[in-house]
């Protein structure tokens, strides 16, 4: 009986070469045209999006509001729109046209853990600063402006005059001070301070200057602060309010749940009435944007029925500070209704059927042909938004793996890693799993990204070169092979076997792709076992240094400094890690863990340094970081710049101001970066 998964070398030799030659030519031809075709088919458009207007001359002179709000003003239930928006509205020029009020946006979500869904579509976004539609420049957002002082050691944040929370109370510097003093510094609420508030490990402070000005003060120059405020970090508005983060919080509302302002007995009573275990649990639940309809917010829409019910409904925030260039208070769309779909096939099928007006979050790239087929029937159009990061799929080597010294030795040998990278047939993987829409790539981000070190790094150690891979493996000391063609360990203990850990049920099919890689690595004599595990198990094993190879993606790494998680070992809690011991070393300033090898250390040092230097230097440091990453191949890049991760977008034809291509990034809270507040129904 043939053993499943073991291929005799004879068969390989005889049949493979001829087939490979013919097919290889065909594949090359097809692959070369793949991206061009994708563009030609009209699915990938031109990057575009609405712009924030900063020139006061272009600000609108009068303001308008939605009819339902106007009716409430007339009935005396709401103050007039000028009063609600304040003197310094956030003016956004819609992408194509001024929109019309009205309509309900139908979408789907998968359960109480899917809160990113609502933040991406409906929060505004409510960052203090935010990216422009290219994802490159930092623009004012909820804050009117950010001013650097004292060589970067202080930053003045200017708020908008007359800006209010969704319940009408003013949004002022007090909300920052409350957050910093009573939430951030409260050890019960936040046991570990955030890296976002620190430079070189030293924490900063927030202080009030006047009602509409706040100062962030740091012991050393913190040039990165604008990016940190713009990105999806701990200072990014109410998204992380459930963990006590955000940078600001509605003081007037949350004080009633805080022991500093409420007597212990009364607080206890409140906790019991609300059926919580402790005041901490209650406080954090009350500060949860997706869970608590009473929480005052600054976002474009606010939660009306919470995320832990079958329908998550959001309605327009009457005090929204967003307006368009004609003075219409945004958002145009009245309500957003997300219905529960606990099974991804059901969710995708509903999107295929046109039951959702705009869907991108859980859409499966593998179903692209079915979506396209039903465009007419469903009344929608399909768009592809490839990400800018180099790895829709990456493979991490755990450099700290120590359960088997032989494997540890090889993982820490650069040529071993490079050879394995050369043994992957990326074109096959791209065609099968990305339907040709991805780009075979090393881990470096897109060419348009400011930290990209140069076009020659795209293919560095990221092509298929079986001959060279075999040569390199022979040279490092793995030349001996067993009867079936697999390389033998140098310590004489038999065949060299390595294992890759994958997660099932993700946007990218890591397990199936790893299976394909397993077949491909047979040609370079490497025996790979694929282990699919549950998420929490993956986490546990990674943190316990039990993982050998891990498959994941590096989305967010296009914003190298806010999302370093998948560039170098940065966090213990990761589903795939390059070295948990290095993480400890990094965060303990060298006192714990294990010291990384020289080039990795160099990379880490450059990263730390970048936070404290001006932009030009930072960009240079970023490029050098990517250079090291590409050369050392701590992480193998497989396919990059693909639309697999929330990049397949389905939008009904009757929606207006929809970009033909948008910047797909977690920092950009895509589609947040396209300002869904400017989407409207054309009917």
């Amino acid at each position, binding site marked *: 009986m043939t053993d499943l998964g073991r291929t005799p070398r004879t068969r390989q030799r005889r049949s493979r070469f001829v*087939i490979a030659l013919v097919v290889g030519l065909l594949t090359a031809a097809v692959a070369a045209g793949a991206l061009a075709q994708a563009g030609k088919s009209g699915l990938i458009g031109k990057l575009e999006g609405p712009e924030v207007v900063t020139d006061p001359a272009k600000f609108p002179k009068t303001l308008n509001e939605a009819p339902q709000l106007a009716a409430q003003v007339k009935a005396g239930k709401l103050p007039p729109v000028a009063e609600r928006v304040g003197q310094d509205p956030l003016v956004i020029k819609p992408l194509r046209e001024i929109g019309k009020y009205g309509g309900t946006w139908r979408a789907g979500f998968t359960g109480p853990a899917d809160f990113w869904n609502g933040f991406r579509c409906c929060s505004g976004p409510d960052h203090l600063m935010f990216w422009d539609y290219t994802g490159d420049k930092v623009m004012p957002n909820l804050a009117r402006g950010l001013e650097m002082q004292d060589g970067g050691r202080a930053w003045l944040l200017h708020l908008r005059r007359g800006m209010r929370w969704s319940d009408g109370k003013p949004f002022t510097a007090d909300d920052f001070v409350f957050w910093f003093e009573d939430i951030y510094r409260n050890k019960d609420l936040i046991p570990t301070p955030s890296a976002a508030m620190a430079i070189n490990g030293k924490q900063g402070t927030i202080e009030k200057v006047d009602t509409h000005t706040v100062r962030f003060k740091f012991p050393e120059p913190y040039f990165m602060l604008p990016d940190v405020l713009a990105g999806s970090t701990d200072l990014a508005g109410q998204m992380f309010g459930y963990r006590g983060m955000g940078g600001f919080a509605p003081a007037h509302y949350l004080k009633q749940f805080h022991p500093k302002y409420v007597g212990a007995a009364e607080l206890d009573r409140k906790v019991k009435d609300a059926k919580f275990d402790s005041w901490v649990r209650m406080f954090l639940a009350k500060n949860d944007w997706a869970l608590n309809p009473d929480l005052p917010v600054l976002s474009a829409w606010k939660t009306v029925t919470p995320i832990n019910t079958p329908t998550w409904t959001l309605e327009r925030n009457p005090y929204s500070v967003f307006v368009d260039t004609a003075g219409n208070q945004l958002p145009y769309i009245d309500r957003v209704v997300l219905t529960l779909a606990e099974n991804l096939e059901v969710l995708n099928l509903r999107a295929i059927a046109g039951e959702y007006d705009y869907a991108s979050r859980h859409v499966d790239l593998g179903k692209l042909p079915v979506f396209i087929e039903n465009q007419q029937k469903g009344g929608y159009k399909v768009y592809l938004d490839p990400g800018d990061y180099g790895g829709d799929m990456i493979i991490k080597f755990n450099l700290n793996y120590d359960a088997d010294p032989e494997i540890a030795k090889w993982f820490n040998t650069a040529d071993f890693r490079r050879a394995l990278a050369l043994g992957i047939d990326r074109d096959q993987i791209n065609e099968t799993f990305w339907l040709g829409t991805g780009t075979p790539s090393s881990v470096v981000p897109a060419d348009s990204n400011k930290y990209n070190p140069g076009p020659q790094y795209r293919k560095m150690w990221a092509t298929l070169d079986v001959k060279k891979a075999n040569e390199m493996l022979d040279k490092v000391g793995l030349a001996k092979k067993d009867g079936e063609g697999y390389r033998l360990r140098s310590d004489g203990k038999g065949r060299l076997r390595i294992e890759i850990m994958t997660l099932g049920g993700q946007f990218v099919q890591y397990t199936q792709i790893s299976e394909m890689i397993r077949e491909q690595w047979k040609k370079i004599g490497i025996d790979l076992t694929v282990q699919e595990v*549950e998420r929490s198990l993956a986490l546990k094993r990674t943190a316990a240094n039990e993982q050998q190879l891990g498959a994941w993606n590096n989305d967010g790494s296009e914003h190298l400094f806010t999302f370093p998680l998948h560039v170098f070992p940065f966090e213990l809690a990761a589903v795939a890690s390059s070295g948990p011991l290095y993480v400890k070393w990094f965060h303990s300033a060298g006192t714990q863990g294990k010291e990384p090898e020289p080039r990795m250390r160099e990379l880490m040092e450059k990263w730390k340094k970048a936070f404290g230097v001006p932009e030009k230097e930072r960009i240079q440091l970023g490029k050098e970081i990517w250079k090291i990453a590409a050369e050392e191949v701590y992480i193998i890049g497989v396919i990059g710049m693909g639309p697999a991760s929330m990049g397949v977008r389905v939008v009904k034809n009757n929606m207006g101001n929809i970009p033909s291509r948008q910047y797909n990034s977690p920092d950009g809270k895509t589609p947040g970066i396209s300002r869904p507040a400017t989407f409207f129904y054309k009917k």
Partner: protein
Amino acid sequence: MAEPEAILERGRAPLGGPTAVGDTREQRVFVASQWQLMWWRFRKHKMAVASALIVMGFYLIVLAADFLAYADPNASEAQRSLMPPQRVYWFDGGRFSPHVYGLKGARDPQTFKRVYQADPERKIPIRFFAEGFEYRLLGLIPTTRHLIGVEGGSDAAHAVFLLGTDVQGRDLWSRLMYGTRISLTIGLFGVTVSLVLGVVLGGFSGFYGGMADTIIQRTIEIFRSIPTIPLWMGLAAALPRDWSVLQVYFAITIIISLLGWTELARVVRGRFLAMREEDFVVSARLVGCSQMRTIFVHMVPSFMSHIIAATTLALPAMIISETALSFLGLGLRPPAISWGVLLQQAQNVQTVAISPWLMLPAVPVIIAVMAFNFLGDGLRDAADPYGR
């Protein structure tokens, strides 16, 4: 004309009643052995007989899976992704010469579907007993012969795809052959475990009665009350990570069978209870047989037929459980190939909408389950030759 079956059908022939017909056939009934009676009774159930043949056919496939497959089930090739089943042309210009047309495939830039054009000029003849990839027949004899293959042996080995290919370009027919082998053997192991547990525990319960009986009964009830899926999930998640696919496979079968034994135990217990008071058992004890002898030589053979029937009926449950476990991601996982794995890989919208041939593994599942059920029913009917 009284056939033995007809006599059996009418129930016990009246003792000492009118024997006007004076039939030797009737007398044959009285002297026939237990197994012969069963066979006659079984023969009446046409469906069961047909099912028996089908089941034998399946197990032939289990033995000859490598021979029947013609492509490496794990060989992926993106340019062959999602090929529909190929049409076989039996005659070429009047001569019997089965062949298929060569296919050229590309991804349509507008629809993003893989589209294949048949080229009538490129005829690829199918050979019987052709050469293909190497394997060991029955685990012993290395050979490269397969039932079918294409001219040119292993060089052009991948040019025929009877049932099409999957997303990774792997031949479905070959994968189905290997899947059949694993799915049907899992069933056997699991059923054996259930059998042993059921007979032993049920026997204890029925034979000794009293406290042992009550405890076992309660345990059975508890097992039956727990929803199976949480139990599976808990046990599957607790399996050590470094077990090979094979070890996981055995563990899974044991997990499934841990719930299957209860039914068998009940049947066995019932039989033991009923038989305890039977004359022949009492006489065996009086004559001086040991307990063991009484049980195994006298009692067990009399309900052997029931056990066979119950066991046969437990198999389809195994098959279905295996597919359910794979769906949940708890059972066999790639690179193992089983019906459950194949179905799990077909369980998505794009398969149903665009590549429905990937759902073909459901057909052998249906046939196998039906066949085992009819077979089991027939056996159970036959197990009681004199009617109930």
